[in-house]
């Protein structure tokens, strides 16, 4: 089982994602903004995957993704982008920047769990 970091300022979404992941036996940490997320991403023992909201206070998901992929400590962690509004160009950007997958809100549990399984 994996350790997953969920970064989303929406507590409803964060709680839902965390609960879904825990049902599969994953250990879950949560962060509610980009700054917290970046700090948590560098925790030890290491994070195996990150679920990242694209719209958050303290820096957009895209910016956070860039920082994750620029840091030698975190660049190999697969990042699954979660968004309620990302357009096709935005999807292309985040995939180019290294996102493992893009999922849309409202969350579909099967899609989330499949994306996590594929990323690990």
């Amino acid at each position, binding site marked *: 089982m994996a350790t997953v970091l969920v970064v989303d300022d929406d507590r409803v979404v964060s709680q839902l994602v965390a*609960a879904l992941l825990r049902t599969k036996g994953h250990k879950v940490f949560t962060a509610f903004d980009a700054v917290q997320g970046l700090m948590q991403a560098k925790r030890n023992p290491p994070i195996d995957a990150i679920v990242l909201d694209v719209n958050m206070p303290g820096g957009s998901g895209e910016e956070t993704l860039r920082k994750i992929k620029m840091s030698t400590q975190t660049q190999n962690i697969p990042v699954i982008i979660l968004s*309620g509004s990302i357009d096709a160009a935005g999807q292309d950007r985040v995939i180019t920047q290294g996102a493992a997958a893009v999922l849309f809100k*409202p969350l579909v549990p099967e899609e989330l769990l499949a994306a996590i399984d594929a990323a690990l």
Partner: protein
Amino acid sequence: MVDKTPGPPFQVAGGLLSGVKPSDNGDTDTLDEPALMTVVGGDRKLAGELAQLFLDDLDNRVAEITAAVEARQVDRLRAAAHALRGSAGSLRAGNVRDASGALESIASSGSLEGAIHALNTLDLALASLRPRLAKMTGRA
């Protein structure tokens, strides 16, 4: 993005929820409970926790949306409406999701034309949703 602030501030008379009579008829447009239960894998406790989190944040979110409309701040409105839309969508609260989405779209257009009407629609949707969620939390 440019924060467009032309003209005098809007006055949102009476604030949200004034004079609105909520309906509690179990309709799935207000809250699609079967869909939500599917999302949470039938876990009623989790559904209740999500409902409580939504309700805990709701007043602040609505206040932010109202303040953004009154101050005619489109970027602020877009962000606040987007946040509420995301939460409502996750809970399968369709009417609130759609009303928030309408406000987000209005803000994204750069104009606030229709914002008061959209705010009233959100007001009505929330008035129906609140008791449904409160019931799910077991605190109604």
